[in-house]
């Protein structure tokens, strides 16, 4: 067992997958010689060579589009978008082909491919390096959207994503890349895609989050538990498309109260979908409205104002208390 941070865990999963399966390729801007701007692909070039670790030209649509071609030819490309903020350049490929080739051919052609991208704020970066726009991918049937929250699940989910027969958008909360370390087991470990994880059981309220927001969520839960003696059930979604309705419904049916924490802008964000699922499947159990704690419907501010924009543990804690007090 080794204590790894998330970027090391991602790197480990890539190396493991490439070792096991010679058809796995890694491609993107600066992924080879440089080892990735976050070092996610460090060392892979030396181990697997330039044919399998490909420094591409600066062209997101071309990266994803050529990955589609490679996947059609039986390879398993893991394409990196350097930042999610540049991934929108490939939305045409994503909508038209990545999500559709299986359906278009009733399964005759499939696309086992992964699109990795760091996303989210909190690292004092330049414009376009801090957004959370997971909905743009999650709303499109045909691909899966996976978001790890820590080193261990990042490694397990990335391995599962590479195994998956279908395209997976693998969104890595860059704020968590080096924020903390976890024991990552030496033996191969995967987690099922499409399943949320109950991080902690509880009876008074369900707290739902994913990605980097799990950290303030956990902190807030601990505070409220301590201060109020409340029992909070915590769900880490891990996959946001397709969503694990059963896990959410079961929990909220038990607790009757729910707070969702999201970094993305509020309107048309994931927490709206979660609220709708609760409305569908746990409505009669609700004792309070679902509380959405989210980024605001404003253009993500530059880092000078970033801290005030991101949901904090304090705000989450207040939201939990308010919801308990209803």
């Amino acid at each position, binding site marked *: 067992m080794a204590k790894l941070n998330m970027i090391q865990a991602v790197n480990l999963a890539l190396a493991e997958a490439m070792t096991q399966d010679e058809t796995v390729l890694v491609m993107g801007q600066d992924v080879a010689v440089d080892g990735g701007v976050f070092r996610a692909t460090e060392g892979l070039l030396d181990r697997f060579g330039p044919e399998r670790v490909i420094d591409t030209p600066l*062209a997101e649509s071309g990266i994803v589009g050529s990955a589609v071609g490679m996947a059609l030819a039986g390879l398993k490309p893991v394409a990196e978008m350097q930042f999610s903020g540049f991934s929108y350049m490939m939305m045409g490929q994503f909508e038209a082909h990545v999500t559709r080739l299986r359906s278009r051919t009733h*399964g005759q052609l499939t696309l086992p491919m992964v699109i990795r991208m760091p996303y989210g704020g909190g690292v004092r970066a330049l414009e376009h390096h801090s957004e959370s726009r997971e909905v743009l991918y999650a709303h499109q049937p045909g691909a899966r959207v996976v978001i790890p929250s820590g080193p261990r699940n990042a490694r397990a989910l990335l391995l599962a994503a590479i195994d998956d027969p279908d395209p997976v958008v693998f969104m890595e909360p860059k704020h968590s890349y080096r924020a903390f370390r976890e024991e990552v087991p030496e033996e191969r470990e995967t987690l099922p895609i499409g399943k949320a994880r109950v991080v902690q059981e509880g009876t008074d309220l369900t707290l739902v989050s994913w990605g980097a927001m799990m950290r303030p969520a956990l902190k807030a839960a601990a505070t409220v538990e301590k201060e109020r003696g409340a029992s909070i059930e915590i769900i880490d979604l891990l996959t946001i498309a397709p969503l694990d309705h059963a896990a959410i419904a079961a929990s909220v049916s038990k607790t009757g109260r729910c707070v969702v924490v999201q970094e993305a802008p509020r309107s048309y964000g994931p927490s709206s979908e979660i609220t709708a699922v609760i409305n569908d499947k746990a409505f009669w159990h609700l004792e309070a409205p679902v509380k959405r704690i989210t980024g605001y419907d404003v253009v993500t501010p530059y880092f000078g104002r970033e801290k005030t924009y991101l949901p904090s543990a304090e705000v989450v804690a207040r939201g939990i208390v308010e919801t308990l007090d209803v």
Partner: protein
Amino acid sequence: MPRKQAAKFTVPYLQILAPDGKVDAKLDPKLPDDTLLKLYRWMRLARALDERMLKLQRQGRLGTFPPCTGQEAVSIPAAMLMRDGDWFVGAFRELGGRLVRGEPLTATLDYYNGWEEGNILPDKNLRILPTSVVIGCQIEHAAGLAYASRFKGTDEVTVAFIGDGGTSEGGFHEGLNMAGVWKAPLVTIIQNNQWAISIPRGAQTASETLAQKGIAYGMPVIQVDGNDPLAVWVAVAEAMDRARKGDGPTLIEAVTYRLMMHTTADDPTKYRTEDEEKEAWAREPLVRTRAYLESRDLWDEAREKALLDELKDQVDQAVAEFETPKDRAPDEPFRHVYGTPHPVIEEQRREFLANLKGGEGRG
């Protein structure tokens, strides 16, 4: 001021078979008789199917489709030159090439009548990608396919098509640039049919030729008469050779003409003259190919008639099969969102089926 030169380029042009059927003896590739006969047969078949589809569409028996009449000399020679294992990556006006590669006529008909079933090939190994309606994307796919062939150490080649309009898309640029960097075994053929719906070639780009766009990616380029199957043959054969030898991609501009409407939803009288169309008909590929066959004593009126009859039967049969009612599951889309089931999709499938039963609404 006297200046140095950093680089210089030429765009060669190739025509072998003139509109009147005269062949340039020095350039003639002297294809074997049976190859020429096959070539002509494929061209005639594509034309026959195209014409029938237009009728079917006008009778409400087929959906919207883009006729390919006049462009047979581009994709057919290219497809005939392809081998097993090569990848055929069409835009949406390569009917002939698709047929050559083995796409059944019924698949084409199904596809244009609103059924995904039309994309399912009798054998996946035919390696014909489904139509890429979204223009430009296919060139990026082609770059990746070609990369994969090289990666696997094969001598497979990818042949990709795009329209003159398509050259304006970012996908054309990004895909070809990658193919150039990768020295990928890719032959890209621009079907310059002079029009992108109503936009004439001259309003699409200011470049003198479309072939020269390949200069931007450091690849060999050539412009050919796209109504001349021999010129296309020679240019594609050379490009494929290069690709198979590991010498990288080529860009070919085939100058042709879209003789019919853009799709059956389009009315070309809004934007071009009958005179222009008439002139274009004088350059169309079938007439000159037949003339060439005749000049080589391979063809005559009787054979022509026999061929047309035979092809009519073939098309009739395909249409009959296409129109035979099929039992197609309405919930098919739910089976192919993912390769493994997910409760959300399964739940919606049950809802869908209940809605279907519940009333005509979803049925």
